[in-house]
């Protein structure tokens, strides 16, 4: 695996650094504004990393939609009785 630097952008962080920061960015955990700027600048000219972020975002959204669990009425009743008895 090799890093890809975009020659036309001298300050480019490169694909490896972008990929390593991608999940922190996606989760809102990239707290350094300069790191955010550099990451977003990379996305502006790197189709591969931009597409990866799009796929990751879509997957995360899909997971959130699919994962919603609903506690049964039976469990609600059980907890009500439990709390009443404490």
């Amino acid at each position, binding site marked *: *695996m090799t890093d890809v630097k975009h020659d036309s952008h001298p300050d480019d962080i490169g694909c490896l650094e972008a990929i390593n920061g991608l999940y922190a960015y996606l989760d809102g955990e990239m707290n350094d504004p300069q790191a955010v700027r550099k990451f977003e600048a990379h996305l502006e000219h790197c189709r591969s990393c931009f597409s990866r972020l799009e796929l990751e975002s879509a997957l995360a*959204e899909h997971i959130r939609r699919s994962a919603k669990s609903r506690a049964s009425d039976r469990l609600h009743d059980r907890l009500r009785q439990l709390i009443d008895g404490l």
Partner: protein
Amino acid sequence: MDSLYGLAMRLTRNGADAEDLVADAVAKAWSAIATLEDRERVRAWLFRILHNCYVSEYRKKSVRPVEWSYDERSVDGAEDDLASWLGEQSDEFLIWWANPEREFANRLLGQDIMAAIEELPEVFRTVITLVTIEGLPYDEAAEILGVPPGTVRSRMKRGRTLLQKALWQHGKDAGLIAGDERQGCRI
């Protein structure tokens, strides 16, 4: 309540155990409500009680054996580097990974994604539940699990890539991944 049940389901992977776990956690929380200092963090507090309850009383009687193949020592080391992990994967997977196609996510069924999450080792499906599904920040997830935030960060990276590998394999088997045009890996 649905969130607590959701985490319990991800942990136990069994409806009856999940309900018992929620009931135990709620009973413990109710009796310890006076110790809750910050009421705005009640959700994280409940998650922590439920997780502790699972670790101390449920994990050992889990229907399926506990899987533990993750080396926590890698958190601050080179193995935490996503690129290093990817470097160990097959060329076929790498080519797919490096040439992402947003539509792939749309072709997957929710049940396929949830099945893939369920098959992840416990440490990964737990952080994915807390961070991706429940939307908690890393530091809150870390507090719930009793680990440093860096460990959550590391588990999220590794868990997501393991999940993608599982989904890629599923996509390949189910014919959801285009073949010939996925050339031109840039990484």
